[in-house]
């Protein structure tokens, strides 16, 4: 992951209106279930059971007895978490608060359809993967594959995200299909791989292959992007406000654009627009838009 930053993030931070990140069901009075991490195992804990969908309608005692896989053994959730709170009636009104870091706990919020999860620390791999609705807020960093193949809802990460943020699992060709992912720090390689719809904001830098195989949706990188931006993309938009290390030769320069608008926010340009990846078959509508003032190295390559 790159750490060099060429633009001022504190200013670009304003692009995201934090009031919009809150749960869509504000009218519903949320009931809270608190999970205090007791310890983290040596091997990963498979905790896809931690979702509002699974917790709603269950008493605290029943939740404590829910099983998680620790390596090849099934253990009760209460082996690793102290559970407190009240029984909720529906996932919509369920807020799960994890009161600390759980870096070795995988798949929290997997496939959730509504409600809220707040993680007051770092989270493990696959956080919020396959989400369909609701929201997850992580105060720290997340592991690889977070938000993989999500279809709806909101995943907001205050810290950094590891590789394959909002990406697709091996072999699948239908990636992120909706929803929104916001990372306030850096993200690793292959952000939004095979993405079809939805929006990903990364407020600092991304690794290589951002938007690889992308078919639709939008990725906005507020910092810099490493190599091979949008390789094999055929649709969708990648916006780089910092420096794009390279644009592949299989993209063509299309035009210069004064400013662009995404979800009601205006980003002042001028931007250089590239279309590709022309090495792919069929109709190619992929767009990479880079802020001209941070990408003079591309002007030399593509415009002359």
């Amino acid at each position: 992951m790159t750490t060099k930053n060429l633009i001022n993030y504190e200013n670009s931070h304003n692009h995201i209106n934090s009031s919009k990140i809150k749960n869509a069901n504000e009218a519903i009075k949320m009931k809270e279930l608190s999970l205090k991490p007791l310890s983290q195992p040596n091997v990963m804990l498979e905790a896809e059971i931690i979702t509002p969908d699974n917790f709603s309608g269950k008493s605290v005692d029943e939740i404590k007895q829910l099983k998680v896989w620790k390596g090849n053994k099934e253990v009760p959730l209460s082996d690793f978490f102290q559970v407190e709170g009240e029984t909720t009636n529906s996932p919509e009104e369920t807020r799960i608060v994890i009161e600390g870091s759980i870096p070795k706990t995988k798949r929290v919020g997997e496939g959730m359809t509504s409600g809220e999860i707040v993680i007051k620390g770092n989270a493990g791999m696959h956080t919020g993967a396959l989400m369909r609705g609701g929201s997850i807020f992580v105060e720290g960093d997340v592991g690889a594959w977070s938000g993989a193949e999500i279809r709806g809802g909101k995943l907001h990460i205050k810290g950094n995200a590891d590789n394959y943020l909002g990406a697709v699992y091996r072999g699948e060709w239908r990636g992120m299909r909706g929803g929104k992912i916001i990372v306030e720090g850096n993200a690793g390689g292959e952000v939004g791989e095979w993405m079809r719809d939805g929006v990903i904001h990364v407020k600092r830098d991304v690794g290589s292959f951002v938007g690889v195989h992308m078919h639709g949706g939008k990725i906005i990188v507020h910092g810099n992007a490493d190599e091979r931006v949008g390789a094999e993309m055929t649709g969708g938009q990648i916006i780089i406000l910092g420096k794009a290390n390279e644009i592949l030769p299989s993209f063509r320069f299309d035009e210069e654009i004064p400013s662009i608008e995404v979800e009601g926010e205006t980003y002042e340009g001028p931007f250089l627009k590239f279309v590709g990846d022309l090495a792919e078959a069929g109709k190619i509508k992929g767009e990479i838009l880079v802020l001209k003032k941070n990408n003079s190295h591309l002007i030399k390559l593509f415009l002359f």
Partner: protein
Amino acid sequence: MDELIIKNGFVYDPLNNINGEQLDIFIKNGKIVSEVGADATVIDAKNKIIMPGGIDGHSHIAGAKVSMGRLLRPEDIRRGVRAKTKITRSESGVSVPTTFSIGYRYARMGYTTVFEPAMPPLKARHTHEELADTPIVDKGAFPLLGSNWMVFHYLKQQEIEKCAAFVAWMLNATKGFAIKLVNPAGLESWNWGGNIRDIDTPVEFWDVTPREVITGLAKVNELLGLPHSIHVHFNNIGRPGNFKTTIESFDACRENKNPGVERNQVIHGTHIQFNGYGGDSWKSFASGGLEIADWVNKNDHVTLDVGQVVFSNTTTMTADGPLEYYLHTLNHLKWTNGDVEIETSSGVVPLIYKRKNPVSAIQWTIGLELLLGIEDPWKVMLSTDHPNGGPFTRYPEIIAWLMSQEYRNDTLKSAHKRAGKRSGLATLDREYSLFEIAIVTRATQAKALGINYMKGHLGVGADADVAIYDLDKESKDPKEIMKAFSNTLYTIKGGEVVAKNGEIVSTPMGRTLYLNVKVDPSLENTMLKEFSDIFRRNYSVNMANYPVQPIPSYLPLPKEIKLDATHVA
């Protein structure tokens, strides 16, 4: 081994013409017997349905292209996950499941014998290694011989006896069970980037046509008196209007049946749904199912399996390399291609059959039209050409469509409207009885494959492969039918209870059925001289590394079927 009595069930055993009679079944030493001792274990099957173990005559469960499918589709392996138990391994995969999953799933459905229908001879060892890892079911594999240079060579020279000696050698070397043809001669054309879409176009550099390959190998098959007929995947598959190629190919093959065999057919056409298309473009695409059914009703020298489509996310895999490339150009999904020296080709592409897609919906009608339109169920086998039309685990749904016109019509209404307009499915009011279901899921297979003396029936002396289903024999409720046929109450394989209430309770190793065909030694020697010369010049391996030895690592439980064809000289 335990003695068993299955008491008071309603027995459906078409080969013995038993249609729902309440009978007791006695089992001893893995066979059906006429009586057992007083301390035999009793299974109470009162008000339950009893059938011989199911036989799948065409299902891609092992070998190079199945492995290729697994490699190509890790996203499929994510699905269908079931945790291991004390005696089973974990399961995963839906359209390309693991070998262990395949054995367990067939056993749960009451199937006890399965044939892998496309084994490239050069990959025979690989195929048998995978079959050895497929628990419970008995199995066999058909070597691909329809685009083999040696076959072309002898057919061109009109040396049918030498061709027979070559085929016999191949069956012996690959531990094969029957002769398989895929896109006859067309696969050799694919080596040059081409394809053959009618039966009278000669293949590049050989001047041999598909018609000559089909009739030539049928002649060889009957000369040798093999238990099964030739098993043919026709030319021009997957293209609008190809029902005509199907009828032409069936019609071309009227060789005389060997007097020693019990089966009626001299040619088996496989997954005919994929070769049952009307119209002349994808726009005018229509079902040709009833046209084929009408023709089959008037001709008695053929059998077929339907290759029914079920709405699913599945994987197509076939030795038909040009077809898979064509599919890839239609759906733009990932594709692999294989080329097996001078024998055959292959390809794999994922495919999603959607209810609301007009082509998928029309394809769905065709298999059912064949099953319902062909009057004599002894000519037709239920299959999905697993996984091409959908996974074999969806058979219960097909059984429900056959038994309930209402359920069929409900599905038709939920599908794209062109399915009703471009097929005759809505006009068919036939509903299958349990007796007929037993025919198209086990008895036809047993008879057409020539294993009816040991499998597919419950008479004394048969293998004790039995399925007991928990179903009211008068039920027409599709949900009840699907539930019953998805998980047996008991599956008994070789006299041992292997599944109970949908749980695997024991995992014995199944046997591998294969032929040992003896031809005249001097004929074989002459053939071998010519063959080894061509082999040395064209194969990348030494001939001695080619044959599969029936040593434990390849065929842990061999079941050899000996044939004397020394009259071929």
